[in-house]
């Protein structure tokens, strides 16, 4: 029988790294901060000491070459994990991800697959400002050939990283520093098949469907609890996998509730919340909707620094509750 173990989101990621490095000799990790991981919280502590600096590689500040090297190492049979301590730094690495990794299998007729996992961290707040606060998951979800996962729970933080590294395709694994303190007890690792994972219902309800991903799912769950106290039964669906995107579970839920609210930590225009609303709208009979669908997102502005503006900028669980109640009102 399997004894469960206690983790938080950060140590669950660490457990995934340890499992992968211990189990698969083809796995190695490369990125900034790996020999002094202050950026990445408790999620990579001591990995270099445990598995050696040859398999846990800190690098020059060259996001493009390092990411591309991950792609090439994967083509040569390794299972690399490239780490970007901030997703913002990846703007330099887009060619390696979009023109190379995502298209490689297709360009060569499905004969070669760069199974590289790119871990990018959403690291916002703390008055760090516009270049150190972005969440670009909608971008990556728009790129065919690139699998995109956003763990919202402690178990997914661990198990989706393992699944990503083992799936054989290039994967963006996007975690969020604001989730690192989440806690849970987990069973030992079982290897999931990423291609068959998708959105999952985390709380079932009958009045309204609230969809989130990553930290937005945490907001959705908190809102769901608050709404319960006000007699509103909310169903929470965690997206988990944004590309390829399978909206079945969300559609089924909305068919039941007739109300859809999407919470997203990205900016609004052409963001992923819009995709969720569109994917539902085009597949349900309009008349079943009690109210038009709605979204709670960042405003269409870069991130500010001043704490007073950060407070206005980032959506909270209260915002989700407020918008949910609007959708509930007749």
């Amino acid at each position, binding site marked *: 029988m399997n004894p469960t173990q206690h983790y938080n989101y950060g140590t669950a990621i660490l457990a995934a790294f340890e499992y992968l490095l211990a189990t698969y000799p083809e796995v190695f990790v490369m990125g900034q901060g790996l*020999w002094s991981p202050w950026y990445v919280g408790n999620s990579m502590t001591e990995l270099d000491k445990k598995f050696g600096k040859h398999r846990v590689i800190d690098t020059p500040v060259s996001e493009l070459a390092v990411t591309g090297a991950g792609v090439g190492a994967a083509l040569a049979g390794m299972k690399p994990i490239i780490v970007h301590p901030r997703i913002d*730094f990846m703007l330099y690495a887009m060619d390696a991800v979009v023109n190379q990794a995502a298209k490689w299998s297709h360009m060569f007729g499905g004969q070669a697959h760069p199974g590289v996992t790119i871990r990018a961290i959403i690291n916002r707040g703390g008055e760090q*400002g*516009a*270049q150190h606060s972005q969440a670009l998951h909608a971008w990556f979800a728009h790129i065919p050939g690139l699998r995109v996962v956003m763990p919202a729970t402690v178990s997914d933080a661990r198990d989706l990283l393992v699944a990503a590294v083992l799936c054989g395709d290039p994967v963006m694994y996007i975690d969020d520093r604001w989730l690192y303190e989440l806690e849970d007890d987990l069973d030992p690792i079982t290897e999931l098949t990423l291609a068959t994972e998708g959105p999952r219902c985390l709380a079932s309800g009958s009045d309204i469907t609230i969809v989130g991903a990553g930290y937005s799912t945490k907001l959705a769950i908190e809102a769901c609890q608050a709404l319960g106290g006000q007699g509103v039964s909310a169903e929470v669906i965690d997206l988990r996998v944004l590309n390829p995107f399978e909206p079945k579970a969300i559609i089924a839920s909305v068919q039941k509730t007739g109300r859809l609210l999407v919470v997203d930590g990205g900016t609004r225009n052409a963001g992923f919340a819009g995709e969720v609303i569109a994917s539902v709208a085009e597949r349900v009979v309009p008349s079943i909707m009690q109210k038009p669908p709605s979204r709670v997102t960042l405003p269409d502005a870069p991130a500010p*620094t001043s704490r007073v*503006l950060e407070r206005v900028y980032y959506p909270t669980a209260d915002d989700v509750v407020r918008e949910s109640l609007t959708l509930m009102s007749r």
Partner: protein
Amino acid sequence: MSWRDLGDLADPSKYHDAIDIRGKDPAGLISHLRKMVLIRMAEQHLAVARKDGLIGGPVHLGVGQEAIAVGVSESLRNSDTVFGAHRSHSHLLALGSSLHGLFAEILGKDTGLSRGLGGSMHLWDGPRGFYGSVPIMAGTVPLAVGAGLAAKLKGTDNLSVSYFGDGAVEEGAVHESLNLARMLEAPVLFVVENNFFASHMEISLRQPLNAMTRFAAAHDVPCELVDGNDVVAVHDAAARLIAQVRSGAGPRFLEAVTFRWYGHVDWREDVDVGVNRSVEHLASWRARDPVARLTAALTAAAVWSASQHADLIADTSRAIAEAWDQAMRDPWPHADTLLDAVYTQRAERS
């Protein structure tokens, strides 16, 4: 010195003595000293304020590197365009920018240089030629090339200054920019502050050789290599290079060798980060103190006295206290700035 190697400039046991000020105008040197002391004490104040939790965001302090910005800025005009990065307090203050405006910005106040939208890592003072600093490494280097091109297209003899570090050169952007500036004959002075570290990574973990002049040579951009903790050496080299740039000779490159006393970010010293940052190593770098070496030279030349120095320290701390207290009292930005600052004209939203 070879273009591949820094030689004994990389040896912190060297260059501890008073700098050579023979033939220099004492008044100019004393104004250098005042600026360097202001920058140092302002950043030391920020270190304490950050430690005490008065500052909400990260501060990247350049204590130990003051001579570079001060030495370079002496030859600049308000009509030049200066770009920095995450560690740019000195680049800004050396241009004579407002201490209060800097402090208010770091505190996220409406009166800050960036109106509370930037903090320590996003500084701007257009009227003084400080065109912006941002934390994405090498992010402003191509911008500096374009601003230089603009000066050339407008037929002025203004120039652009691009400050970056020994870590930033690992970004392809710097190499593309050197070649582009060279081919456009853009008036740009590239200033690399080589302090041997990029966050926790000492240079030997990131690059095979320690001299940044390698890249200037590869891209055929004439360069000079100086002791970055000798304000006279920096000033003279910068003055020579800037004169060449203004004359239309194209871009130039200055490598200034230095060391930061604080750790990568905030007030800690980071003496724990592995290679070449032991307590002893840091101590010997502290002995190559740009402020102390200038002060010693001025004192030896009998153009500066202990009491004058005491007054300078006292005046400076008073100025810092006043600017800080004012900034602390200043109002927060209004929530509207969040959307008003996105475009020149606010977008209509339905």
